[in-house]
């Protein structure tokens, strides 16, 4: 294993620890938005897709390249959109409605 790979492994392992720490604080009521938000975040593979499909020495034919970029963009844009839409729905107890009840 090269020094570079070991450094990357270090970053990976520490990031896992941060992930576990942060995610374990997400309440169960938000677990579906959490999943769609992580869908958006793993859309970061779009960075890799652009590097592989868009650079000078791109090995793919154009169609495969476009499909690759589409797949990754789907996650990014779809993930953030649907997460935002879901989170908009989560409302605290309405104060006005309470008054109606009394």
């Amino acid at each position, binding site marked *: 294993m090269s020094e570079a790979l070991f450094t990357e492994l270090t970053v990976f392992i520490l990031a896992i620890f941060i992930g576990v720490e942060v995610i374990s604080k997400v309440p169960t009521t938000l677990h579906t938005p959490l999943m769609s938000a992580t869908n958006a975040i793993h859309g970061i593979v779009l960075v890799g*897709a652009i590097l592989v499909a868009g650079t000078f020495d791109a090995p793919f034919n154009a169609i495969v390249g476009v499909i690759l970029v589409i797949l990754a963009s789907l996650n990014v844009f779809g993930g*953030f959109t649907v997460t935002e839409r879901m989170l908009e729905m989560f409302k605290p107890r309405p104060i006005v409605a309470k008054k109606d009840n009394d």
Partner: protein
Amino acid sequence: MAGVTVNPVNVAYLVTGILFILGLRYLSSPRTARLGNRLAAVGMLVALVAVLTQGIVQWWIVALGVVVGAAIGIYSGRVVKMTAMPQMVALFNGAGGGAAALVAAGELLKLMNANPGEPLPFDQTFTIMLTSIIGALSFAGSIIAFLKLQEVMTGRPITYPGQQVVNAVILLLVLVGAGFVIANTNILTWYWIALVAALSLGVLFVLPIGGADMPVVVSLLNSFTGLAAAATGFVLQNNVLIISGALVGASGTLLTLLMGKAMNRSITNVLFGAFGSVKPGTSASSSTSGQNVRSVSADDVAALVAYANAVIVVPGYGMAVAQAQHSVRELADQLEKRGVEVKYAIHPVAGRMPGHMNVLLAEANVPYPALYDMDDINPEFERTDVALIIGANDVTNPAARTDKNSPIYGMPILNVDKAANVIVLKRSMKPGFAGIDNPLYDDPKTAMLFGDAKKSIDAVVSAVKAV
């Protein structure tokens, strides 16, 4: 190192990593969650702007791909029904896994073009194979999960004799193929063999998993796609991919373990147990007798809940199928007007993905403080007049506490049978997904209201208004 120069692109990637972590942190409360989502989106924007400075020449490929992907993504994100979120997440998992595998394949081809005839370094081939295998597995597995959730194919486990043996052989083929690629032997041939084998394995490993176990599978595939993205980071030696992938991997893994715990089953049991398959010999003959089942009308239910002090609603997948969440909310409004206290009890595996019921009820404008987790609500059933079960079955089955022979024995359940009255809304007396008898239905204090959940609730609502 005089005058240290830092590549600004790497600074941008660091910013992205930080924004992703902060974004997830803000998901710790519904109050701050939207800010979190937006921070993460800004982080993504930073990374994308940065990568566009990295010698992109095929602009039209990037532009066309992003525009089409964004159009489809934003459109489907806006119109998807909340009941269909599990399918949506499954599709995104698949797309992410597929993209990761393609990136790795592209890097392999690039490497081979750049070093014709030379052996490829271990670091590269190893990480490329890892990415391709995990990516292909999650791509193919997610497609099957999607088809099952969308009910294009049966939600029941699909099993056949020698299934485990077939899977083991294919897994071996994946590993052998990867080994040959890493050993620089007939690289392309073995690469495609390993890739096709990994795709088949993805298909075959989700086929025997039943619909009720989908929360575990969707979470696990989410974790896989995260790991695939991280592995892409190793291939491209790109920290932002490694960090983001690790975050997603951690999230998916935590949710997977949580779901397993909520069913009192190990993840291996979920994946290989074919839970809910129809076992020959133990068919419907042994099912709940049905003799003691008491069926009531919507008017009876209305009278019961309208004069109650406290009602707990227990939603399940049946509520999602019937799209009954808005009617449920209307019923709760009517009851609250009459001074009845209404709470919702959410079992961790109710529905088809983690948090599925919460999102549906949020969509119907139920305030999130009214939704209670299993551990918080269980002590309250004892002082509750009516437990109203809407399309939930196994998560309310008292056999999980009492019957050592029940397949779900030991699974933590909602203690609905402790309530003074239990009302079960159900389509028919057919046993639940797992085909397990539910002695709750024979309990003298249980009354059944048969029919489509939405129609039944609507009938109860009009009856309550008339009370």
